């Protein structure tokens, strides 16, 4: 690990004012400290933003305002979250381990980096870590990597098939959550899943954040009508990243047609993947297995699986259909 300076910011303004080239904000440190040990992240200056007072969960209109420093375990256990947003509570509890959730913050969870093996190993090329160096995952081990929206088709210096690892972000993407950001140029709000970006030809950029931007809170719109859940598939029963996960909400009319639905996939793309095409296909259609399958197929028509992760297409389709059936009233 390279030597670095550390400072604890007093408040948001102080944190942003301290930002300079080589600075990284430190929340729970559950990913950043690992990356520093691996030599993947080499900040000169760590500004600790875990004690800015942004550790409360409060009602905001009919929704909720969640401070960026709220610990994952507190978020999942909060009565208003469990009651109004079971999809979110389940997603958070599906991630990491109890110990990690006790440390990890909401802001940090959104900004965690891919767990692609090549990204995490500085002895190997990686366009995300070292732009232009190549992507050995495409010809190597990519069984857990992206099937949607990746840039394997671009030139070698831009290719990236990484996935975003967060479970929480998948639920937030399905919920249209708002991410509150303060930066050197003031404050703004980004609607999920718009915080994250596809790799395109800049795979080193995970998000739309600009230098110095600090996530201060996540705002949840009012709870969705109908039923919702989060399903995560992995070979180990806990403490493993998703092969594929799904945040799903379904609201059915009295006549058996779909009034509304939300679908977001994890483990399939560089971003938490909002399945907007499937949602459009399904809205107004009969809430039946046939229609669920048609919607899933519509979404996955644009999948571009790699030689060793084609199973994820099947898995995502099956997961969408099975989960929506579980959510039928």
């Amino acid at each position, binding site marked *: *690990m*390279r*030597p670095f300076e550390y400072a604890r910011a007093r408040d948001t303004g102080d944190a942003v004012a301290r930002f300079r080239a080589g600075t990284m904000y430190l929340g729970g440190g559950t990913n950043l400290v690992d990356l520093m040990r691996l030599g993947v992240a080499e900040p000169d200056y760590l500004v600790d933003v875990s004690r800015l007072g942004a550790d409360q969960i409060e009602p905001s209109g009919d929704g909720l305002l969640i401070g960026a420093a709220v610990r994952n375990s507190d978020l999942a256990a909060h009565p208003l979250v469990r009651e109004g947003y079971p999809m979110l509570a389940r997603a958070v509890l599906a991630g990491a381990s109890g110990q990690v959730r006790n440390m990890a913050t909401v802001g940090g969870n959104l900004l965690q980096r891919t*767990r692609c*093996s*090549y990204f*995490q*190993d500085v*002895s*190997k090329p990686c366009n995300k870590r070292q732009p232009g160096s190549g992507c*050995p995952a495409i*010809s*190597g*081990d990519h*069984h857990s990597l992206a099937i949607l929206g990746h840039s394997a088709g671009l030139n070698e210096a831009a290719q990236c098939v990484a996935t975003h690892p967060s479970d929480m972000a998948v639920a937030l993407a399905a919920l249209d959550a708002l991410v509150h950001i303060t930066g050197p140029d003031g404050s703004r709000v980004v609607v999920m899943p718009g915080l994250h970006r596809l790799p395109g030809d800049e795979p080193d950029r995970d998000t739309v954040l600009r230098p110095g931007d600090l996530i201060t809170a996540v705002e949840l719109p009012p709870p969705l009508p109908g039923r919702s859940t989060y399903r995560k*598939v*992995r*070979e*180990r*029963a*806990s*403490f*493993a990243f998703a*092969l594929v996960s799904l945040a799903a909400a379904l609201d059915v009319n009295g006549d058996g047609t779909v009034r509304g639905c939300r679908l977001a996939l994890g483990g399939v793309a560089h971003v938490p993947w909002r399945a907007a095409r499937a949602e459009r296909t399904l809205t107004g259609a009969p809430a039946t297995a046939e229609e669920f399958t048609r919607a899933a197929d519509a979404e996955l028509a644009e999948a571009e699986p790699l030689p*060793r*992760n084609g*199973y994820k297409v*099947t*898995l995502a389709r*099956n*997961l969408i*259909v*099975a989960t929506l059936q579980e959510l039928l009233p």
Partner: protein
Amino acid sequence: MNRIEGRDKVTGRARYAYEYPADDVAYAYPVQSPVARGTITSFDALGALAMPGVIAVLSSAEPPELGPDASPELALFQGREVAYHGQIVAAIVAETLEAARAAEKELRISYQAEPHDVRLRPDHPGLYAPDHVNPNFPTDTEQGDVTAGLAAAAFSVDATYTTPAMHNNPMEPHAAMAVWDSAGALTIYDSTQGPSADRDTIAQALGLPPERVRVVSPHVGGGFGSKGTTRPHAIVAALAARAAGRPVKVALTRQQMFDVTGYRTPTIQRLRLGADGDGRLTALVHDVVEQSSTLVEFAEQTATPSRVMYAAPALRTTHRLVRLDVPTPSWMRAPGECPGMFALESAIDELAIAAGLDPVELRIRNEPGTEPESGLPFSSRNLVGCLHEGARRFGWEHRDPRPGIRREGRWLIGTGVAASTYPARRRPSQATATVHNGGFVVRIAAADIGTGARTALTRIAAQALDTSADRVRVELGDSALPAASLAGGSMGTSSWGSAVVKACEAMRKDGQTGHADTTEDVNADGGFARHAFGAQFVEVRVDPLTGEVRVPRLLGVFAVGRVIDETLARSQLIGGMTMGLGMALMEETVMDEGSGSFLNHDLAQYHIAACADVQDIDAAWISEEDAHLNPMGAKGIGEIGIVGTAAAVANAVYHATGRRVRDLPITPAKLLD
């Protein structure tokens, strides 16, 4: 009786190798090759030496003096050739570990990389028959007419099973502290499964007489085989301490452990079974393909369980090895039996299905009267008893053999069975017993790697002395004690216990002190085939839409002679079964062919079973008397628990889904194909 050092361990008082204090201690960090094959063309340590706190840099630029017979994996910094990715090519010695690691970036090493070959395949042109397989079994065996036996079969199986590379991951990383005294004698605090052998190997590597080296290792945080042979961290510590003129500590990182502490070779195993109309074997052929490094030949004895398990009038086993540009494989819990029994016990299940027989019944019909390979009588063999008792406890009786027909919600349910086996051997050891302060002290250079050996030996000594355990103190984990064999091959308790009993008996005769050496007793161990057996029963749930496999029930019933300590035995058996569960469903070290390196080299990526994977797990044993083993009548229990588990899971997955997975681990990707 509680584990003797339990309180010390949970309160943090028990000292592990890296935790010993020393004045003026320095730290060494091993630097590894980023190429899988090639030559070091230039080496410039000036920048690293100029870094703050750096004391010395060891490398082949100035080869340190070693003994003439150092094994190739321990002959550090002697040449410029690189045999595998991650091979140790230098070490930086500094005032702190952080300073040593920081200086790595300033070390300039240039390589002439050459094309590497890291992929095991059954048609590799480099495959050959090694002289023997680990440790000294014949490479190939053949008896009877295999061709005729297969041709005459009413039912047959011809299938290929593959197992991936797997890594031991003890909680305590491989670590050592080396201290040279002014007379040139070396003390190494090491994390080892056998202080006597570790001392001898270190002395040989350094070119010292063994009496100039002492290994201290009273507490070891797991090994599973990876600490059974001396690892290069200990040599790095010794060389660095010699160069620095100070005590030096070395601890491998988790990532480094994947490269230099051994691993289970991947295997490709073809099984051909023939059976008559009653399901009795007419032929059994077990052909194995596996790998080693270019540095050292390690040939795992994967087909050896097929020489022991079933009565077959025609029996052939073969091992073929290829030397690749990979790290050297080594022992991982039940080398040989563990991967071999995945293949054999999967194939036996397939044969039972082909023959329309219950898999418990098929095994019973093929029970041999004597050991198939040698013709020797078994000292005791209670596989059938384990199968019966396991079937009774598990509720096997009413099992419907049809696959893919039981469903609970989204889950398909299935059950499976497989047999376990492991040799019951012992090795020569020495011990002393002495009357001391109204009690007794027993000394032996045994190793407690977390198994509870200290506690088991205390009980053995107390029984031999006809006294209570609290009057006996066992001293182990130090090569200055009477020489003893390894904690390995499930031979620890049998070997050490034999010496302890003999020393205690000698002391009772003498009235004050007794010394024992079991070399002659062990050399006289002939005339019988000695093995432990067991049967494992598994229930699995498989979601056919997602490929998720969960194991709600896992039961093992074993016949392991006399059980010395029920708590410790249960913990060993359940530990082995849990490791077997991980092998079945998740453990796999991925070789990245592009770089020639192990890719998923940490515990976030190399998955072992988590608590949530282990639900209702139980180990039991049947009563077994065996007078031909050792004074305790005990068989080793460290390894048999992992043998057969993966096959039982695979057999249950077939029963649940109708899909036969012959390639471990059984992941969602394979079930969704």
